[in-house]
């Protein structure tokens, strides 16, 4: 994760996943940036499974309703208006808490599935599986789909005996990125050496720190002339485990959906460092 968008989360997530897969590890990469899923652009892949992602929302059954009006009081989100002769559900306000449906004395508000996006699973090669959540345009709440995609990835990884599960999280520091973080064993904070990168990373760090999970910084688009990240790392005692220097050829390669890690020794080196740190953390060593 990163806080700020556009600092290189996807670059690091995709190249790390392919790097470990090339070394013989079994890897599952999951794109949890469901609003703008981009990791798939960098992978040659075959679709193996596609499913609609749904949420459940109440639907009013006029024939069952006794017009008691209680449902409106059950809803904390003003998503139900109980009028003298009708009940109206406002789906965009509904949080799918089931209170109205399950507390309705006449069972007149059954929960009905509504599509919010889709979750697709791909095979990249025998070592790498890719799962992507993609929110439909016009859907307002992204975090539910993040949770569903994450849980699908966790199940798959467990079932297939994966050694590495890599989440490419959403930018920001709200619950959409938190959903990825809370089911991880360790967190890589990708940042860039600018005050924007620092500010947003420090907000994301606060969230990770509160969780107590091991965490390290990777500086992407590195260039001399800014000491803010180092100062932060010192004060908060977070290790900076890798630096990927700014490289215009890498930027061009990225633009057409390719991250040939082999062609960029500095990137290759950074990935090895990330792997070592993760191994150290997972074996209980000092991060």
């Amino acid at each position, binding site marked *: 994760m990163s*806080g*700020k*968008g*556009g*600092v290189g989360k*996807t670059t690091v997530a995709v190249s790390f996943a392919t790097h470990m897969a090339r070394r013989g590890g079994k890897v599952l990469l999951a794109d949890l940036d469901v*609003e*703008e899923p*981009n990791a798939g*652009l960098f992978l040659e892949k075959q679709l193996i499974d596609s499913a609609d992602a749904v949420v459940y929302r109440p639907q009013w059954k006029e024939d069952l309703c006794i017009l008691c009006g209680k449902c409106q009081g*059950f809803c*904390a*989100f003003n998503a139900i208006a109980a009028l003298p002769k009708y009940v109206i559900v406002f789906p965009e306000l509904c*949080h*799918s*808490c*089931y*209170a109205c449906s*399950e*507390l309705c004395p006449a069972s007149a508000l059954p929960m009905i599935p509504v599509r919010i996006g889709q979750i697709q699973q791909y095979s990249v090669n025998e070592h790498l599986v890719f799962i992507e959540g993609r*929110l439909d*345009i*016009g*859907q*307002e*709440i*992204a*975090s539910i789909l993040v949770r569903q995609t994450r849980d699908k990835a966790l199940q798959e990884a467990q079932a297939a005996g994966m050694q590495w599960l890599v989440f490419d999280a*959403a*930018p*920001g*520091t*709200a*619950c*959409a990125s*938190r959903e990825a973080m*809370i089911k991880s064993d360790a967190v890589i904070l990708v940042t860039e050496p*600018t*005050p*924007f990168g620092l*500010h*947003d990373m420090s*907000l994301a760090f*606060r*969230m990770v720190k*509160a969780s107590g999970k091991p965490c390290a910084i990777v500086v992407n688009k590195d*260039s001399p*002339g*800014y000491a803010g990240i180092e100062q932060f790392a010192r004060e908060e005692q977070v290790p900076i485990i890798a630096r990927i220097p700014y490289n*215009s050829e890498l*930027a*061009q390669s*990225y*633009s*057409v*959906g390719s991250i040939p890690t082999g062609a960029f020794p500095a990137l290759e080196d950074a990935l090895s460092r990330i792997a070592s740190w993760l191994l150290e953390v997972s074996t209980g060593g000092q991060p």
Partner: protein
Amino acid sequence: MICITILSGKGGTGKTSVAASFGYLAGKRAVLCDCDVDASNLALVAGAQDIQSREYSGGKVAVIDQEACLGCGACAQVCHFDAIEKNGSKYRIETASCEGCGYCPRVCSFNAICMVERKSGDIFIGQTRFDSAIVYAELSIGAENSGKLSTQVRRLADEIAEETDAEVIIIDGPPGVSCPAIAAATGVNYILFVSEPTLSGISDLERAMEMSGKLKIPAGVLVNRADINEILSTKIKEITTRAGNDFWRTMPLSSDFVRAVRNGKTVLEETDDERITSVLTQTWRSISERFQKWQ
């Protein structure tokens, strides 16, 4: 008064650099409004002095009184958000997961659960280096960014603009296409997308333009770092025009953007590169003149 939102879909394309430059050009005629409430950066380059802050609470959270809880578990059974966990022989709320729906207190036979206000962020009002007002916010850690806080930030910016007779509100929006982006875009006069010629940038721009199309708001595109890939820059022009939106101009890849941010300045104050200054100045002039004519 007109309202212009800067968006992109993809993060890191230069929204804030463009919004701050427009703020610099508009001077005290503008109110600046940062709606990227979970990664707010506009004040870092526009400056913010004489800051006033106010707490914002949106929604509620359940709390279980550990004295009164008898550990029956009825609450955990009805919670659809996995927010209630066992705490010894009792139950407790995992606050970060609680959606605030208020279902659990209704099924507790011992009145052990109550709903309390949840702080969801702080809103700040200050004065920029350009003598305009700026409104921005900081979301509480891991809070739900449902767009409610952004809506509050916008409401406050509206009030300030009204009071100070400002001519324009410049909104720096969040990445993405869901609730926070919709909250930053709803009801504005114009959306300017800042894009970049990468497959990710294009994919995200297409999704973002689909969103603005659904909201029926006129929009245009400015391409940043065009020389990373000229072919994809031309493609952005095509998809922009095909979507019925304005294609403004392109800016080159330049380290002046990074230097400006590091110096806490807008790129317009830091660069001599006319390919950047003229593009930003002319785009701002064209957009603001278009709306002034209509008023």
